[in-house]
Structure formats: structure tokens, C-alpha cells
């Protein structure tokens, strides 16, 4: 038999700095290294295999083989993943890595097996930041009174409510025009998206709020995985872990470069000093999702990040 074809999908572009695309390409490269000639990884960017919810279903049906998927849609089929979307839970990347690469991360990935999906590793989209046209965000009170476009996800809506902002869920295609014309004052997105979509043209302030760490799951369909030999499974696992580490390293380099570029484009960039003030404010969000995440898991994460 010839090499095994793995159809690998993600929702964003195939651009050189796109975190999802980097993860996919790095996986392809690493797998060739660990199991030369045994696999043919076919890449499907730009939602060609469906959006993230649909790709998750496709993985569980076994109709697609692999995907890189954002944490938030994963949490709709496996609620414990909501813990990663809790605002201000990770103060920096190292904390996130400690949780996600340790036993807690393994426990999270295991919860997907009920849905016939094998979770391999966590890559990253980087921290999400706030951009707006009203004022720089230093403290929770600065968020209040501003109209924010948010993702249609209860965690984000609750987070902006808790901070006193006006959360406006809006489809992505209209967001740029809406910011430009003042239908909304600002939004929250990762740095790379700000740059790639030219939001520096329509938004004045970039505040490095690091409010949500965007974890990306590298996933494989159980049906596909079970067809592999033990050696091939090992190669796939090792390749995914290697790809995630490479992607994190490259993404952090890119983000640092992009922040400088955004400054050069005229955005006023500020850092947030007092994260504890924010964490206090979003306490109600933690309480609200505590039970669906699982009390025990949530406490372990909190203990890990306050070490």
C-alpha cells in the first residue's frame, strides 16, 4: 500500500504568519521526519472542510482526519475546555504551557475520546488583546461604557458584562466596517489578526490586556488513529507535540515583531500592569462556569497558575 493520506483542515488562511497554518505545516514536516514516506498530509486551509464546529463533528464521524481547532468551539463538545477561555486565567505563556503540557492538559484531551476524537497537543493563537477608539485600557474601569464587538460565545459576553462594557455579538464579515463607522468602538482579537486585517487603519488604541489565552487543539479522528500501527501512532503523537512547540516559538516571535509594526503604523500601544484588578472583576464569570468546567479541575488549574 502507498502512503496514508491525512486530510488536515483549519479555518484561517495559509499565510506565513498564521498560527493555524504554521501548526499544520510544522506537523506535516515533523511527521515526514518521524515516519518518512509513510504519510501524505494534505492541507485544507480557509474552511474548505467546514467551520470549526463542523470540523469537530467531521473528526468525530471520521470523515476528516485531522484539524487544528480553537479552544472555544472545542468547549462546546467538551465543557472542561472552558477553563482555558476563562478571562485572565493565564498571566503569561509559561503558565499556560505548564497547565496544558502537564497532567491537566492530558486530562482535558482525554475528555475528547468520548466524542471519538484523539487530542494530540496544544498549539497557540497567542493572547487576545483589546483594541478600540475611545481610550487606552489600563484598569477595569476603562472598559466600561465602550461598545465591544465580541465572539458569539457566552464566556466572552459574560466577561465584558462583568467589566462593565457593552458586548455586541456581530458576524466577522461586518466587523471592519462597523469599527470604521463607529457602530462598535472596539473589539478583542489576537495581534496577528489585527495586523493581517488592517485594523490599525481604523483603531487607535491597542491595549495588551492578555485577557484570554487562545489555545489551539491539534486533533485527529479516532477512526483514522485506530487504523494506524503502534509505530505510526507514536510518530503522529511525537509530530504533533513537536509541531506545537515549534508553532509556539514562531508565533511568539511573530507577535513581538507585529507589535512593533503596529506601533510603526501609528497605533498607541500600552501594557496592562495590574492584572489582579481585572481578575477580581471577572470573578463572577469564574463562578458562573465553575460547575460546567468541573470543580476539581478548575481548582487544580487555579492552584497551578498561582504557584
Amino acid at each position: 500500500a502507498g502512503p496514508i493520506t491525512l486530510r488536515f483542515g483549519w479555518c484561517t488562511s495559509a499565510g506565513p504568519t498564521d498560527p493555524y497554518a504554521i501548526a499544520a505545516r510544522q506537523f506535516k514536516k515533523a511527521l515526514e521526519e518521524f515516519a518518512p514516506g509513510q504519510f501524505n498530509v494534505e492541507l485544507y486551509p480557509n474552511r474548505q472542510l467546514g467551520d470549526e464546529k463542523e470540523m469537530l463533528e467531521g473528526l468525530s464521524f471520521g470523515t476528516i482526519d485531522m484539524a487544528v481547532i480553537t479552544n472555544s468551539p472545542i468547549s462546546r463538545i467538551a465543557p472542561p475546555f472552558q477553563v482555558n477561555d476563562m478571562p485572565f486565567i493565564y498571566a503569561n505563556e509559561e503558565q499556560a504551557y505548564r497547565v496544558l503540557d502537564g497532567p491537566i492538559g492530558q486530562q482535558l484531551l482525554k475528555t475528547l475520546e468520548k466524542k471519538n476524537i484523539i487530542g494530540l497537543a496544544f498549539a497557540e493563537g497567542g493572547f487576545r488583546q483589546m483594541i478600540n477608539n475611545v481610550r487606552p485600557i489600563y484598569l477595569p474601569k476603562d472598559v466600561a461604557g465602550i461598545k465591544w464587538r465580541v465572539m458569539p460565545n457566552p464566556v466572552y459576553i459574560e466577561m465584558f458584562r462583568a467589566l462593565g462594557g457593552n458586548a455586541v455579538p456581530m458576524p466577522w464579515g461586518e466587523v471592519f466596517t462597523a469599527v470604521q463607522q463607529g457602530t462598535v468602538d472596539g473589539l478583542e482579537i489576537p495581534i496577528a489578526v489585527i495586523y493581517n486585517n488592517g485594523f490599525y487603519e481604523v483603531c487607535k488604541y491597542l491595549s495588551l490586556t492578555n485577557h484570554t489565552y487562545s489555545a489551539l487543539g491539534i486533533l485527529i479522528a479516532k477512526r483514522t488513529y485506530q487504523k494506524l500501527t503502534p509505530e505510526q501512532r507514536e510518530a503522529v503523537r511525537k509530530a504533533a507535540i513537536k509541531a506545537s512547540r515549534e508553532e509556539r516559538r514562531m508565533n511568539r516571535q511573530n507577535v513581538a515583531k507585529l507589535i512593533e509594526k503596529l506601533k510603526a503604523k501609528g497605533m498607541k500601544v500600552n501594557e496592562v500592569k495590574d492584572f489582579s484588578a481585572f481578575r477580581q472583576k471577572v470573578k463572577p464569570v469564574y463562578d458562573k462556569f465553575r460547575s460546567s468546567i468541573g470543580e476539581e479541575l478548575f481548582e487544580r488549574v487555579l492552584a497551578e497558575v498561582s504557584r
Partner: protein
Amino acid sequence: MSPAAWVLTIGFLLLLALGVPIVFAIGISSVVAMWLLGIDVVMLAQRMVAGTQSFALLAIPGFILAGDLMTAGGLSSHLINVADRLVRHVRGGLGMVSVLSSMFFACLSGSAPATTATVGSIMIPEMEKRGYSRRFATSLATSVGPLGQIIPPSIPFIVWGVIAEQSITRLFLSGVIPGVVDGLAYMVVCYFVAKRLGIPKERRASIKEVIKAAYEAKWALLAPVIILGGIYGGVFTPTEASMIAVAYALIIGLFVYKGLKPSEVLPIVWRSMRTTAVVMFIIAAASAFCWLLAYERVPARLVGLMLSISESKVVILLLLNLMLLLIGAVMDNIAAMIILSSLLIDLGARLGIDPIQLGPIVVINFAVGMETPPLGYSLFVGSAISGLSIEEIARGMLPFFLVDVGMLMLVTFVPPATLWLPKLVLG
């Protein structure tokens, strides 16, 4: 190509040619392809439900219903009155009224058949009374239909915006100049046809008459102001604008013009939802079909093929226009747009075409396809209203079709025609 790829292309076209409804030709060829590829058939239902799930698509029932309510409530006929007073003293004036009123109506409606139905049902009998041939009157009403989807709001632009992830507001603005240029050129054709037929001019309406008509139509004239002003002023998104339009048409039709009886409302709602279902069911089924095309990498192969024919951007663009026109002539435009989307986006990126220009190239080609035989909703509506055969209408349409081809060249080869206005309004 794999057997599945053959089923999705040739098998699909064969079903279409034999008279299987488009949506089922799409669905059946998808099911067979899934079976051949060993893909779990659960994907059919998953893709079909997913195909309906885009917020922007909600504007489709909105604008269809708004258009139906405006016609029933008398807003449309008031607009035609105003157009009539403005241009009837010019030679060929009545033809121009058809064009002008369809341009007005295009600012309310997002669909070609609705525009043809509204303008045609009122204007064809009037034009016949005054010496135009029925063939010309019907051809004109059929040809102006596509203006409904070139001039915003526009259902195909909404669908394209969803697929290509471009701002629908920007896409709407990109259609304004091509739409107006096309309309003006149609008026010129009307002038020459009237001259050849020896149709006399009519009495010029006095300023007072014009003002009176405009005053009576003030509520109807306000509708495009609210819809377009709201969209471009950043007050609401196109989807929301469509719902505002529904509410406005309902209130004015029921309580101001009183052309609409309360008992008529629910039947009109049902009729509009039926039209919506025709369009949306195709979108839903095409979502399964397109997933399979992508899975089999058919679009990427076709782009490769097209790019291998010629190096020249001009030649490829001409080929692209020709291909879109031919496909538009035999297929429903929404279905065609969705099926070809990844191919077109890919090709646009490789040729370096601005995505906001690519939108009108695609949408306007297919809009013209609405009037070209054998399959075009505007054509069907024109034929249904006039009782003329499709062949006969098609012959009368030739001069207008040539105008459309000219406009397509403008859209394809003169980027500012589509890009200047969005840039001006939105920066």
C-alpha cells in the same frame, strides 16, 4: 479525475439537463459521490443544516419579503409614477420609465425576478398601448431585472460576502456605478428603438405635476433613504436593514397607502418564504456538494487548468467572464456562485484582483445570466407575464445584452468602476 469527481461534474450536469430540479441534482450527485468515496453519509445532513447557518443569509428572506410587501402595499407603483413624470417627454420616454423605475425599485429589492415582476406587470401593458411591440416591452422588463441585484441591496452580493468573507456593505457599494451605467445605457437603447418605431413623445409633465407625484410618493421614496442610509451610515448591518425594510413596508402599506389588507399579509409572508426556500435549499444542498468538491480538490485542479491555458491576465479574465456567462446561462446563479466560489477566490488571488472587485465580476456576470436563456428567473417571469416564448424574448433582448457585455468589460478591466465608491464612502 476520480470517479467521484466525474459524478460531481458530468453526472451532476447530466441530471440537470434531464430536468431534475437543481437542488436535487446537487443533492443526488453528492450522495453518490459520498458513497464512492466511502464518506459517512451523515455528512449530507450535517452540511445541509450547516449551509443555512450564516447570519448574513437572513437578509435573503428579509429583502424578498420587503420587496413583496412594497409591491402589494402600493409603494412600488408610487415610485413608477415619479419616474413617469420625470422622463415621459423624452423620445422613448416610456421605455426609460421602465428603466428608471426598475432602478428605483432596485434600491428596495435584492432580487432580479422581483424587479422584473414589479416593473413588467405594470409597464408591459402600458408600453403596448402606446405603440411599442410586446416583444420589446417584455425584453426590456426582463433585461432590467438584473439591475435589482446589481444596484444594492442585492441577494447575490450578500451570498458572495458570506462565502468570500468580505464586507457586504463594501460589496453593495461596488455595484452602484456599474448598475447606474447599465441603466443609463439601457435608456439610450430605448431612445433609438423609439425613434425607429416612430413613437411620439409625450407631453412634458409640469414641475407642479412632478412635485405632486413626488409628494404622494414621499413614503415610498423614504424607503431607500432609510435602507441605504442605515447601511452606509453604519446604523445597521444589511441583515438588520432587511428587517427594518419589512417593518417599514408593512406599516406604510397597511396604514398610509392602505394598498395592503391585513388579511393579505400572511399569504404574502408564505409566498416570500417559498421564494426564500427555493434559494436557500439550493444553498444548503450546495454546501454538501462544495464540501465534496473541496475534499476532492476539484477547484484547485480547474484553476491550474485555466492558468495553464494562458499567461496573460487579460486573456484569463476574458475566459473567466465567458465561463461565468455560460454557466450563468444554464444554472441558477446562487448555486453556481457557491459551487465555483473556492475556484474563483483562488483564481482572483493568483491574478491579484482586489477581492472587492472580484465580487462584482462574479455577481454581475451571474446577474446577466438571470436574463439569458435557457435558465434565468427574470426570463421566466418575463415570459409568464407576457405569454411570449423564451426564444422570442431572447431575440428582443439582444441590444440590451450587448449593453450588459459592455458593462461587464468595464467591471472587469476598469477597477475604479467598482473600487472608487466603496473607498470614497468607507475609506
